[in-house]
């Protein structure tokens, strides 16, 4: 956090000035080192909160399932998916995800890591597979947030480290803010740019602190889990990471490859519902499906819990093997169940997602203003860094622009061009910004291009799906994108309009 403190001496400062200055130095160093990564992860994370809605926008003619699924519908979907997997030579692991508060589709997927075969389908209320699940742009955004499109293990580690850096920034920011309470409600706009940005940085940072701490801690843990469990395995499980993971995530399939019938998943669901009548099907993860060693992790949710579901373990004969305790188990198990929902805002429904969107955007702004404060401070001290100002403007505005250009690329030339388009957009924005006369001119130009690209993407999508759009959520998303595009264009052109009006 940036501090705005009177220089007149106080009787008993809550935090000694020397300590505050030292903390502020650490806060600045950390922020400068990690700002771009934190910014990209925060902005993409804010968008990914709405991942399921974006998927519905990308494929607006696929069925939406509003009611909980019957056990028979789940069994039908499993059977149908198994037939598809056989045809695709991809019978190994299968995953079914039913509708719930966070998403309204019945999704079925399968893959075999040995053959490389896979399939992703959308089923209707009866379990009939009606369309292939294809949302490459949403997938691109999700992967950007989770591993920055780097090799998965390294990318997740880097994102986890970014989460640690963000958490550390929150700690040092809080400790370098002795006027936490005295400035609690100030937002002064105009005047000194540095102090305006400091007010915004501090207010958004402090009042959103519970959210910021939760998403950075959970994100760091999710990203670093492989590393942590790896060391844990070395220390306590003879280096066997799978065994260590099994302690946390439940039993995994054995290597017995003898053929076996498909598991009776309907019977498993009914077993759970006999004990817990209000439990609803959420997901099923089947490992080594149709083999003697198969294991089924059945996710069933009951209302009133942060966890997406509790996981019940079964063998291939529908014999129960215990449960994960994610909803009502011990504290560690409940924390485990809450990690992902708390990180993504995937609990409670759409209003929670909107709140996460607002708070995520706030964290993104906090990251952005952290650097602009540093740059303003240098300018105020007579040491301006115009090249860094332009680079930061390029980085900041390249992201929404790159999201829009990747959408255009996916819609026109195909998903294979998403990553190259993202990289080219990022590099072009930074390089282009360096050639601009001022950082704000560069920012304005990129915003204009962003608005235009968003509107073009919305137009392309509308023309592609004209007349076949059956999902009303897709219309809401399209309208939101269009409004965002207009907002970008207006924000870019407003100074131009103001000057024209003044000279008229």
């Amino acid at each position: 956090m940036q501090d705005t403190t009177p220089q007149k001496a106080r009787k008993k400062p809550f935090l000694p000035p020397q300590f505050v200055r030292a903390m502020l130095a650490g806060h600045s160093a950390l922020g400068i080192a990690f700002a771009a990564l934190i910014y990209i992860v925060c902005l993409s994370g804010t968008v990914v909160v709405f991942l399921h809605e974006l998927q519905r926008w990308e494929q607006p003619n696929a069925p939406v399932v509003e009611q909980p699924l019957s056990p028979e519908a789940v069994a039908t979907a499993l059977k149908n998916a198994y037939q598809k997997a056989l045809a695709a030579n991809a019978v190994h692991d299968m995953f079914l995800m039913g509708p719930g508060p966070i998403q309204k589709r019945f999704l079925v997927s399968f893959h075999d890591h040995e053959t490389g075969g896979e399939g992703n389908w959308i089923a209707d209320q009866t379990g009939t597979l009606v369309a292939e699940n294809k949302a490459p742009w949403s997938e691109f955004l999700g992967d950007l947030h989770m591993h920055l499109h780097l090799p998965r293990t390294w990318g997740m580690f880097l994102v986890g480290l970014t989460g640690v850096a963000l958490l550390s920034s929150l700690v040092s920011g809080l400790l370098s803010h002795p006027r936490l309470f005295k400035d609690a409600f100030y937002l002064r706009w105009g005047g000194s740019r540095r102090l305006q940005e400091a007010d915004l940085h501090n207010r958004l940072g402090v009042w959103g602190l519970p959210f910021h701490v939760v998403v950075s801690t959970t994100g760091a843990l999710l990203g670093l889990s492989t590393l942590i469990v790896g060391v844990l395995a070395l220390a306590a499980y003879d280096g066997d990471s799978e065994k260590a993971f099994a302690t946390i995530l439940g039993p995994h399939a054995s290597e017995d490859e003898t053929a076996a019938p498909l598991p009776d998943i309907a019977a498993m669901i009914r077993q759970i519902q006999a004990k817990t009548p209000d439990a609803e099907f959420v997901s099923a993860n089947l490992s080594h499906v149709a083999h003697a060693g198969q294991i089924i992790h059945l996710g069933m949710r009951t209302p009133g819990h942060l966890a997406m579901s509790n996981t019940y373990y079964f063998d291939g004969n529908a014999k129960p093997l215990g449960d994960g305790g994610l909803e009502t188990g011990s504290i560690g198990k409940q924390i485990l169940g809450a990690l992902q929902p708390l990180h993504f805002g995937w609990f409670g429904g759409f209003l929670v997602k909107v709140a996460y969107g607002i708070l995520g955007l706030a964290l993104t702004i906090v990251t952005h203003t952290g650097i602009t404060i540093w740059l303003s401070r240098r300018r105020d001290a007579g040491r301006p860094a115009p090249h860094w100002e332009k680079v930061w403007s390029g980085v900041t505005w390249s992201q929404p622009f790159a999201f829009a250009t990747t959408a255009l690329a996916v819609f026109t030339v195909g998903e294979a061009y998403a990553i190259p388009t993202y990289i080219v957009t990022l590099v072009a924005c930074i390089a282009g910004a360096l050639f601009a006369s001022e950082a704000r001119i560069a920012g304005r130009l990129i915003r204009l291009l962003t608005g235009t690209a968003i509107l073009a993407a919305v137009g392309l999508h509308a023309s592609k799906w004209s007349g076949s759009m059956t999902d009303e959520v897709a219309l809401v998303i399209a309208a939101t994108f269009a409004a965002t595009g207009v907002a970008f264009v207006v924000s870019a052109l407003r100074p131009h309009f103001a000057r024209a009006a003044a000279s008229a």
Partner: protein
Amino acid sequence: MSLDTLDQTLPLALAGGLLLTAGVVLLRRRWLQKRSGGLAFLIGGWLAVISGFYVFARAWGAEMGTTYALGAVSTAAYALIGSTYERRVSKQRGPRESAFDPEDRPTNWRRGIAKSLLAIVLSGIAAIGVGVALAIYLPLPPADRAVIGGLLVPILWGGGMAWTLCDPRLVRATIILLSVSALGYGIAFLPKVL
């Protein structure tokens, strides 16, 4: 959620939302009074916030209600601050506006790299060592201690990073982080070595 449940939840949610908003508004009233009193606003504000948490917990249960209330306080404060922002004339400065600057430290590339290694690498190694030691020896069931030990890693790592970067003495930070690492891994791996 059935209609009956919704009938009970909706009024409670509205009441909780109003209480939390009122709490933030009252705390701002107290803040506006600065040092000249306003204790009633302070007490009333915190009471309203606590009541809001309680009502949300009644509406959705402690687990969901507390989470919702935390989010609601943040968004209510954002809305209030956004709606009461102060427009200032350019270049106008008040006495309180001269800000603390970060400590001016002599630095060079070698020192920068050493600091980065301490803050990113050695803090991480120490945090993972302590987290794994706790994941093995906490007096809890295996899954619980693994999750709690794991959760402590980013927290310890983040704290270590913040402390290392603010401490100007590199040697002190190095010695402490090396000691913590040795202790953590020593405890975690000792039974394997013996």
